[in-house]
């Protein structure tokens, strides 16, 4: 699984120009499920994200988790993260898991994140063409693989 985390002051997903999901302060997570992933991988990644302390405390140090600051999560499936760009000029998607299994594991990730943090987890529309708008503050961007 490959995910990209952006720390935002706001984020939203639009489909055909209409907002389908929206958060204020929190994390926008783009997630790509890979062919080798299992429920164990997904669980480990959810725990990893839950434990990340990437928000500023009163002293300006990044000591606080999303849960600590009362933040929200916006998770968007993003199979292009699994692309192999090391060769050729068009991305290869051999490592990306195909639906419906990829959707099952993505949903599992969102459920685990919500359960572990007690914070809202909003999502885009799996597989749809979407516009993701966000304000990345810092910027602060983290790339995780598992």
């Amino acid at each position: 699984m490959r995910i990209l985390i952006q720390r935002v002051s706001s984020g939203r997903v639009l489909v055909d120009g209409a907002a389908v999901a929206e958060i204020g302060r929190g994390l926008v997570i783009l997630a790509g499920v890979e062919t080798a992933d299992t429920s164990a991988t997904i669980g480990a990644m959810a725990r990893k994200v839950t434990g990340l302390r990437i928000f500023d405390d009163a002293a300006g140090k990044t000591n606080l988790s999303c849960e600590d600051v009362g933040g929200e999560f916006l998770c968007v499936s993003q199979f292009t993260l699994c692309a192999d760009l090391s060769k050729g000029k068009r991305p290869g998607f051999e490592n990306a898991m195909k639906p419906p299994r990829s959707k099952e594991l993505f949903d599992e990730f969102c459920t685990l994140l919500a359960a572990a943090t007690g914070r809202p987890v909003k999502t885009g529309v799996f597989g749809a063409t979407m516009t993701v708008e966000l304000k990345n503050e810092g910027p602060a961007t983290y790339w995780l693989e598992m």
Partner: protein
Amino acid sequence: VKLVLQRVSSAKVRHQDQTRLEIKRGILILAGVEPTDTCAAAESLAKRVGDLRLFEDANGETTLTIKDVKGEFLVLPQPMLSADLSTGHPREVESGDAQEIFDWFCGALGRVRPCKCGVLGLPMSLQITNEGPATYLLET
């Protein structure tokens, strides 16, 4: 160098409530320089980005490069991309040559298409409209 590429219809960088950098259609790049990186590696990576077919043609197939669509680059340093996240508390990797390598990378991109570059160490708010969405990870 670790790169995050986001295909955008617009992106802008604000600092102290003022817009400092702005592009329309193009690629927003967040770049994290790592200790083993060299200017030569950064330059070849920039060329590679210029050749990637990430934009859609009239049939909705991603066959077009940033040169084909006459897009622009917006590049920001993002040392956190090289962060060690094993403890849950990110620690940035120190790299004395990070600025030089970042500048070299931006220069090489600028020879492909117009390129606007952010500054290391300045707090910024980055507003992105990612279309697709289409986000790619790439490293040297």
